């Protein structure tokens, strides 16, 4: 209602009802504002909570990675080679510890080997997580839990345990405290599968399917046992051996001494305990004559009935190469092999031609490392081009260095109808193995090589081996190389090899045994390969053959059937 008066300003007055309405509107507005603020605060807090990232890492690593498991490793018959055990590890949350001194002395009372001052320093501060001691026993876990100190807790970790200890150390390798492989098959598994599984979170806490290796633990044990014995018997610096199924390429045993204890991974990195089978390259001496002769027979330029003049040494400028067990007469090819004639081997190589010989070495894979799962490998040293003298020395195994694994693969091919297989440490079927076959020599050459190997065991340098392995139709070639010390060949120390295959009437396994710097066992024995590497091979075969389902057979017909038709 407005009252209008003349000549004066208009005065407007609100009625009591209108005034109250305005007041109510204002109050509602304030309430709305208050509510918006309140709910806004709640929403803001919710967003804040949602954005908080929980720190689940343990000293830079995710908690899951610490508890990650690895698959159990079994041998070919299902015996455990490596298993995971769950062990508690003690950690502390320093920011939740109330009395550092009390906590430190309490822990010290249970774990006396921990320094109390170190503990106090460890437990002081505002950190969210520190390890106190890893990989404890359940008993210690109980004792510490009973102390009832706030801020101490346990996490269950997986720890790798190798029940066999040293026995298969070079195959298995080792893992570090974070369960990552640092050597051997453990490392190679990390490289291709387990690390991936762990990073995807599939290997956490729950069990992974166990992995079967190709190794036969019984064979592995026998090889380890015999080679350990050889180390003391011949006072050798080192000894190593490897056995392979020539059809499937499965490695059934691999030992290299001195070795290490995978349960104590620090020892794995010692310089002297490297894997001599895959990571050692050596001049393999006369055992290389198998390669020379196989190449020559396969080239067709040399026949098994040929004879070679070994009456005089071969001269190259100032040097004359002569024979160790010199016969100094004309030798047939089997005699060259049997008497291990350097001169004969050179003539055989020359008949084949040095370039053909070099190409044959390439065909055998002597230019690169052997494709095997183990990460410990070293490139072989074979001159890219052979001069006359280098080819001559290479014919009897000097001037080129390959690993024993190379020799094993070549010997397996010579016994396996000329098919060279890719070795493996995992179980493999024959069909899968056939896909990796490469024919390096003909079937006929393979037959002739089997005859030569057996002949050498019956009449040549392998006879000491055959004394132990009687009835198992074993054959092989010795190799005694003078070691190179400070760039010169020394006559004092030998590097001895025995490369063999058995049973030769139906070959199944190939083996290479090396003995480094052996001494004579007694006054009557020698230091050449037949006396040590050869005898060790015989002892291994004598014990291992029955386990592998090979029964002894003394039928002389079996040996006669190995003789090629031309020589009967």
């Amino acid at each position: 209602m407005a009252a209008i008066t003349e000549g004066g300003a208009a005065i407007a007055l609100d009625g009591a009802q209108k005034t109250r309405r305005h007041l109510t509107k204002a109050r509602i507005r304030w309430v709305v504002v208050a509510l918006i603020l309140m709910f806004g605060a709640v929403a803001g807090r919710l967003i804040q909570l949602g954005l908080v990232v929980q720190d689940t890492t343990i000293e830079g690593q995710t908690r899951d990675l610490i508890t990650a498991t690895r698959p159990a490793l079994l041998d070919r018959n299902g015996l455990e080679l490596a298993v995971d055990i769950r062990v508690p590890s003690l950690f502390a949350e320093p920011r939740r510890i109330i009395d550092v001194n009390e906590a430190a002395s309490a822990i010290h009372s249970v774990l006396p080997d921990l320094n109390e001052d170190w503990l106090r320093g460890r437990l002081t501060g505002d950190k969210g997580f520190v390890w106190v001691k890893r990989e404890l026993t359940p008993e210690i876990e109980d004792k510490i839990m009973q102390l009832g100190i706030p801020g101490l807790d346990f996490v269950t970790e997986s720890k790798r345990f190798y029940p066999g200890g040293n026995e298969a150390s070079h195959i298995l390798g080792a893992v570090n405290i974070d369960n990552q492989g640092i050597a051997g098959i453990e490392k190679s598994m990390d490289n291709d599968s387990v690390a991936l599984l762990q990073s995807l979170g599939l290997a956490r806490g729950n069990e992974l399917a166990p992995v079967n290796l190709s190794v036969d633990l019984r064979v592995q044990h026998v090889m380890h046992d015999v080679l350990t014995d050889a180390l003391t018997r011949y006072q050798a610096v080192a000894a190593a051996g490897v056995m392979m199924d020539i059809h499937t390429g499965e490695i059934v045993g691999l030992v290299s001494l001195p070795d290490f204890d995978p349960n104590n991974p620090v020892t794995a990195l010692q310089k002297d305990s490297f894997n001599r089978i895959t990571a050692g390259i050596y001049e393999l001496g006369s055992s290389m004559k198998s390669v020379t002769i196989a190449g020559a027979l396969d080239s067709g330029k040399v026949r098994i009935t040929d004879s070679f003049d070994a009456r005089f040494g071969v001269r190259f400028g100032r040097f004359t190469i002569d024979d160790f067990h010199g016969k100094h007469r004309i030798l047939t090819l089997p005699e060259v092999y049997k008497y291990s004639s350097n001169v004969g081997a050179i003539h055989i190589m020359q008949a084949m031609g040095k370039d053909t010989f070099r190409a044959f070495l390439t065909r055998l894979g002597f230019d690169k490392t052997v494709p095997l799962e183990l990460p410990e490998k070293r490139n072989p040293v074979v001159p890219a081009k052979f001069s006359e003298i280098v080819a001559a020395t290479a014919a009897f195994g000097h001037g080129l260095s390959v690993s024993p694994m190379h020799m094993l693969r070549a010997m397996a091919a010579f016994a396996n109808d000329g098919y060279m297989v890719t070795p493996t440490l995992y179980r493999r079927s024959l069909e899968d193995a056939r896909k990796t076959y490469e024919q390096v020599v003909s079937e006929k050459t393979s037959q002739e090589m089997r005859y030569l190997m057996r002949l050498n065991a019956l009449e040549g340098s392998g006879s000491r081996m055959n004394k132990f392995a009687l009835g198992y139709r074993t054959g092989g070639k010795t190799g005694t190389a003078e070691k190179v010390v400070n760039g010169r060949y020394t006559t004092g120390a030998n590097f001895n090899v025995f490369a063999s295959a058995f049973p030769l009437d139906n070959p199944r396994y190939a083996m290479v045994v090396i003995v480094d710097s052996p001494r004579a066992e007694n006054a009557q024995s020698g230091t050449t390969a037949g006396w040590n590497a050869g005898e060790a091979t015989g002892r291994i075969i004598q014990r291992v053959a029955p386990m592998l389902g090979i029964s002894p057979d003394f039928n002389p017909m079996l040996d006669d059937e190995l003789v090629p038709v031309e020589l009967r």
Partner: protein
Amino acid sequence: MIRTLNIVFVCTSIFALIGVYALKYSVSETAAEKAAIQRQIERQQADLSLLKADWAFLNQPANVAPIVARHVAELNLQNLAQDQFGRFEVLPLRLTAPDALALDSLFESLNSGVDPIQQIISESN
């Protein structure tokens, strides 16, 4: 009308409140139970893994071999020699029919009171 509706709503709210409250407690109780069982499983798995490792260790040739070596003398253990293997072909074949004549003569001698086997035994003594 609105009054009764309000009373119904208030009552349902109170019941729902009590229900949710009880549910919350039972859930947290179940969660605690689950955690306890999980801890137990973890502990038992750990124990199991230790036992498995123990078994594997005891089964290893590396562990059995020294035990064998210790008892070589008492049990007269020796490595298997090659000539100790036999074959089925070496065994003589079983006779297709019993030797009737030999049996007849055996029965005759038994009837007459002479036991040839007893004779062999007494002769050897």
